[in-house]
Each structure stands twice: as structure tokens, then as C-alpha cells.
């Protein structure tokens, strides 16, 4: 879909494929036939630029027709914009794209769910470059202060952002220590290990604490020429690259 659209944040989409798959297949309580059901779990894609991955999983889950991936991704009159629009796409819970805002929205959802005594769990996926946004830490402080134990954040730590490796651009590490100091329960996991991710995401939050799972990932995972290369943060593909990517990922 990215190749056809001639645009899309492919690197950060590929780094979180397993995270999103595990969430939708093994963890979250959602019903693609009833995308608006009140007590569904929520996923906020705070790193909204990786919407291509979210769309692919939502379509695979049956939230909408797979055809849309090819016909409506980054098309002027299409519903699947490069950053997700909650009003246009079934299954998208929040319009995101301006970094740092999604995690705050997830805090709001978690607070509202508890306020209304709804058995809703809220998940938010952030990027590693996103950790540089001040708003992330405003949200982190609020989540711990208000003891939101129905909130789970996942950091897709692929160590690459627009202008370079995240650790070179503005190093957010040591991230586990920072979240611990903010009052969160912290775990680390290999973000491409489906079994490990499932195990980690099934764990309950400690009482009155938000959880963050820092997932070590590889930008452009699965595609030989993209892996670990920050240049594939947001780029179009040549026909040769596209064909190589299909071979690398075992796609038709």
C-alpha cells in the first residue's frame, strides 16, 4: 500500500507490526462487527505516522474491507490518511499525528473509563523519538498521579527517527529509569518476539499503577535493505525496492 501510495512511514510501521498484531489478536477486547461498543478496549496510536501498520491490522481483523488499503491510503478523497482519522476509519480510536498528544488522550480515556466504572483497558503505542516531546512526560506524571492501572503504554523503541538514530538525535535513555521515577511499572521486551510480547501484554497492571512496556525493535524490520536504517522513516519505494521487500517478507 505504501508503494502504491508513493508515500508512507514504512520504517516505523514495520517495527511495530508484531506489537499491533499481538494486541488485536491476543489481548484487546474488541469486536470488528461492533467497532463502537462501549466497553471495548482502546488502542491509541500516539505515533500516528505509523498508521499504515494499524490500517493493515484493522483490515485483517475485519474492521473494514482490505480493498481500502490499496484504494484509499493517502488519496485525496480516501479515508485512510497518512495519519489516522478517528472519524473516517472504523477501529481508529483517536486522531493522532502530532507527537505526544495520543498518550494524553489515552490518559483521558483511562480516567473516564474508571470514572464510569467501565471495564475498559486503554493501550497507547508511542515512538522512541516521541519520548523527546515534553507532553509525554506531562501525561506520564498525570497517569501515575491518578493511579491509572487500566493504562498500558508501549514504546516502539526502534532507535531511529527522521534525522538519525534516536540516541544520536536526542537520547531519551535511560527510559526505564525515567518511567520508574515517574511512578510507572516498567518492563522491557523484544518487540519482534510474538510469544514474549503476548506474555508481557497479558500481565496485569500492579494495583494503582500504569504500565509501560519498552519494546526493542528494528526499524524496517523484515526488509533487508531497510532494517535499522533511519532513512526509511518516511519514504517512497522504487519498483526494485518494492519487489525486494515482497521477497524479503515472503509476500506474494
Amino acid at each position, binding site marked *: 500500500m505504501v508503494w502504491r501510495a508513493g508515500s508512507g512511514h514504512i520504517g516505523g510501521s514495520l517495527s511495530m507490526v508484531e506489537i499491533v498484531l499481538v494486541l488485536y489478536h491476543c489481548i484487546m477486547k474488541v469486536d470488528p462487527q461492533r467497532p463502537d461498543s462501549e466497553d471495548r478496549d482502546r488502542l491509541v496510536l500516539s505515533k500516528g505516522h505509523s498508521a499504515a501498520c494499524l490500517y493493515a491490522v484493522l483490515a485483517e481483523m475485519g474492521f473494514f474491507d482490505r480493498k481500502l488499503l490499496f484504494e484509499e491510503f493517502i488519496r485525496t478523497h480516501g479515508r485512510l490518511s497518512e495519519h489516522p482519522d478517528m472519524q473516517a476509519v472504523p477501529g481508529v480510536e483517536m486522531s493522532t499525528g*502530532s507527537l505526544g498528544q495520543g498518550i*494524553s*488522550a489515552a490518559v*483521558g*480515556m*483511562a*480516567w473516564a473509563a474508571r470514572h*464510569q466504572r467501565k471495564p475498559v483497558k486503554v493501550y497507547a503505542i508511542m515512538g522512541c523519538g516521541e519520548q523527546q516531546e*515534553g507532553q509525554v512526560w506531562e501525561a506520564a*506524571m498525570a497517569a501515575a498521579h491518578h493511579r491509572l492501572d487500566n493504562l498500558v503504554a508501549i514504546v516502539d523503541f526502534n532507535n531511529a527517527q527522521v534525522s538519525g538514530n534516536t540516541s544520536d538525535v536526542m537520547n531519551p535513555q535511560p527510559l526505564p529509569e525515567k518511567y520508574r521515577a515517574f511512578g510507572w511499572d516498567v518492563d522491557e521486551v523484544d518487540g519482534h518476539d510474538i510469544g514474549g510480547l503476548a506474555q508481557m501484554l497479558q500481565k496485569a497492571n500492579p494495583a494503582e499503577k500504569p504500565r509501560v512496556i519498552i519494546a526493542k525493535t528494528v526499524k524496517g524490520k523484515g526488509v533487508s535493505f531497510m532494517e535499522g536504517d533511519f532513512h526509511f522513516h518516511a519514504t517512497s519505494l522504487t519498483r526494485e525496492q518494492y519487489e525486494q521487500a515482497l521477497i524479503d517478507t515472503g509476500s506474494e
Partner: protein
Amino acid sequence: MGSHAGGVSGMRDEWGGILTRAGQKFEKMVVLDADVSPATRAKKFAEAFPDRFLQLGCSEQNVVSVAAGISTMGLIPVTSMFACFLSKRAADQVAISVALSHLNVKLCGSYAGLTTPNTGPTHQSIDDVNIMRGMPGMVVMEAADAVELEQIMEASLEYTGPTYVRIVRCPCPRVVPDDYQFQMGKAPTLREGGDVTVLGSGLTVSMCLQAADILAGKGIAAEVINISTIKPIDAEAIAASAAKTGFVLTVENHSIIGGVGSAAAEVLVEQCPVPMHRVGINDSFGKSGLLDNILKNFGLTPDNIASRCEQFLAGVRS
């Protein structure tokens, strides 16, 4: 009418009561604070409904995005903050978290315009109308007095979608009639006249009415219209009055760049081009000091409003 500096109950005190009464009527309403509730008087709501009050500390950007998240869960979040930080510091959050998806968030900005006189430019909000007016789909409102503010807040809570209400800190003399019914998008004419049109909003409406009294003493009939919905603006009322009088003066507790004057000019230039003048803050920051002195400094007095109308008419008639 006397000083704006104190004595009478200020609009912020009214706000505390209005929020609390709205809380009784709208059970899904929750109030979010950024550590200013003792100042905005939202504290009164917090005391009445502690479970429906969310304190988030000094984090305006977080507050707005949290409110967006809360609104998706079927509650009606009201952010009661300082107008300056809500509009400028959290502008991107208002745009992307709230306005982009037309979420049902009620943004309320206190200490609007120059009305936090001592603190000066850091806390005065002279461009919030400009910023909020530019947000696609945002309804922007300001009340001329406490009676109208209560009705504006009710209308805002009944409406589904993002709204911005700006609230001054000081008292506003009662100007709306007893049988007043606020209608979103309608600009009520508070006084009819055929010689000049004077458009006020919020705090300045009472000044415009006093100016009309002064002008009446000189044989000039001023029509005073209350622009309580700044967006969507009542183009029909403004154009009809302009067609009748041939001159429009706007008066705002805000920068004349992007505020009510600009909004009126946009209507007039397309629908009824007539000469107009704008009274307000002209490409400068506010000042620290006594409110009455600051307002005077920016020409926000009945005398100046009246004399600007007189000067125009003198030019036409000479």
C-alpha cells in the same frame, strides 16, 4: 457606571456558580483544571463535585489532549483554564486533539483580554479569539454579562462539538434584558439607531451602550449590537445594520488583529462595504497596572468610543 476594578462580583465569581449549576443539570460534564481553579473559581465546582473534577497541574497541553480522550468516552469535558495558556500554549492540542475530529470538548478561557491587570502581558490574553477563530469548526463565544454567560455555557453544553468561551476576570454590568434568550450564532441588537453601528463583545458591550448614551445627548443615534457569538458570526445582522447606518465601529478587549473587528470586516467587505474603525489593542502587548488605566490606554472607554463615532460623522457631514 463605575470602575471595573472591583466591588461588584466579578465574572470569575459568577463563573464558579455557573459551572456548578451546569454540573447539576449536565451529569456527564466533568471539569479539568491546570492548577488555576482558585483563580478561575472552578474550585466551587470541585467542591460540589469532587469526583467530576480532574486536577492535572500546570500542564495545559496535557489538559487539552486528556479532555479530547475523555470526550470519546461519552463524558463532556470542560477545560477551565487561563485563556492565554489555553489558546497559545495548547494551540496545537486544540487543533489536532480536539478540532480535527470535532470532539465534544468545551474549552473555557478565563482572564480574557486585559482583565488580569496586575500580571501584565504574560497572563493577558489578547489573541485568543484570533487563534480559536482559526480552528476549523470551533464555535467562539463571549458573554456581555453574567446572565448571558450562564446561557452561553448551557448552549455550549447542549451543542455537540468543540466550543471556546472566553471569560473576563472583572465584573461586567448587567446589559441583557430580563427576557433574554441567547442563541448561538445570533447577535442581538441591544439598542437601535440609524446613524452609526457599534459592535461590542463581552466586557466592551456595556461601554458601547454608555457611548450610545453620550452620542444620544449629541443627537446621534447609535445602534449597539452584542457579538456574543464571534464564530459563526451573525453576518446577516451586521450587514443589515451597516446598510442602514453606513458606518461600523468595533470595540474589543483583544487585539484588533484577528479579533471581532477583523471578523466584522470580513463580513462587511464581502456583503456590505462601508467605512469602519476598530477600537482595541493595535499590534502591541498589554500592560501591567490598574485595569481602568489600562483599558483607557487602549481606548476602551465610552468617551473614546463616542468620540470615534463623532469624528467619523463629522468627516462625512463636512
